[in-house]
């Protein structure tokens, strides 16, 4: 049996209540430990040979955009932790909900099958972002070439220091049990 959620995505109503309660509920708030930096923006623009003057000329970018924008492709970068810190305080992964679903549904393997990014308010040098993870949908059981399992959609929302949404990453995933003859 399928039910509809606030986000109008179908959800299998036969799922455990603990999972159904997670639908559309923001979780795992993560505040970036760095601000959006001009040096990183320029390093990224250099790596991609991007001559866009928005990334190289402060006066012009402010005149046109009202700030120095970061490349949209860097959206997820600003909330990533350092590879080491003296106080390893973060107790969850960047896409922790994905791992939660794998575990609670009993799927040893899960893959990201599609990723769509939506870019909302511009991200400017000096902004400090935060992210949160939202489960949007879980399908009924499906058989695929990989095996028998369920599809789920997780959105990672990014917000700036004014709580404006600057972007959304929508991960479509498939968790499954490898099976013979499927």
């Amino acid at each position: 049996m399928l039910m509809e959620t606030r986000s109008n995505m179908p959800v299998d109503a036969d799922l455990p209540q603990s999972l159904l309660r997670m639908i559309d509920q923001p979780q795992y708030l993560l505040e970036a430990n760095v601000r959006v930096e001009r040096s990183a923006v320029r390093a990224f623009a250099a790596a991609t040979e991007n001559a866009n003057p928005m990334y190289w000329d402060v006066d012009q970018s402010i005149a046109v955009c009202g700030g120095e924008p970061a490349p949209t492709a860097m959206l997820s970068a600003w909330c990533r932790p350092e590879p080491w810190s003296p106080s390893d305080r973060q107790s969850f992964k960047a896409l922790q909900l994905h791992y939660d679903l794998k575990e609670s549904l009993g799927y040893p393997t899960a893959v990201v099958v599609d990723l769509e990014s939506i870019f909302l308010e511009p991200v400017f040098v000096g902004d400090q972002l935060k992210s949160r993870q939202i489960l949007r949908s879980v399908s009924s059981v499906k058989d695929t070439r990989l095996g028998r399992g369920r599809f789920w959609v997780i959105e990672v929302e990014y917000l700036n220091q004014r709580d404006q949404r600057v972007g959304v990453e929508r991960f479509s995933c498939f968790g499954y049990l490898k099976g013979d003859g499927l």
Partner: protein
Amino acid sequence: MTCISNANNLWWSEVNEGDSLPCIEVRASATAIVGGAIASRDYSPLHHDAAYATKEAGHRDIFFNSPTLAGLFERYLCDWAGPLGRLGRMRVKMKTPVYPGDQFTLMGRVKRRFTDETDCGWIELELQMQVSGKTVSECTASYALALTDSDHPWQRRATQWQP
């Protein structure tokens, strides 16, 4: 330094459905792969440690991470349309890694042109990255272009920006 006001900006009305974008060719370097990964704060050894990438993970070498691949498509769109263009949506599918020394070609075509309810001018594009004629990455993008001198996508905020 290019002056934005004098740059070769493409207007929404100049684009037609079915248009092909000019191809560009770029050679991937280890420097660009490592630089893009570290700038995007991606410290996976797959993108900077050749010994790990080859011996542990079975790859030919280190390769571009996803944000840098997306950034290459973003750069391609900017090369095509000029700096007033603004990306609203992007979906990137990596099929085969791009390694140092690979000469890759970026190409694309206009799938659809429309304006939304806020009169923002949108172009939907299908883009590809190819190495030796083989598609290694695909991208679909929704890109906003300036309609007039006085209304360009970067000035839009909140309800006036609906990607």
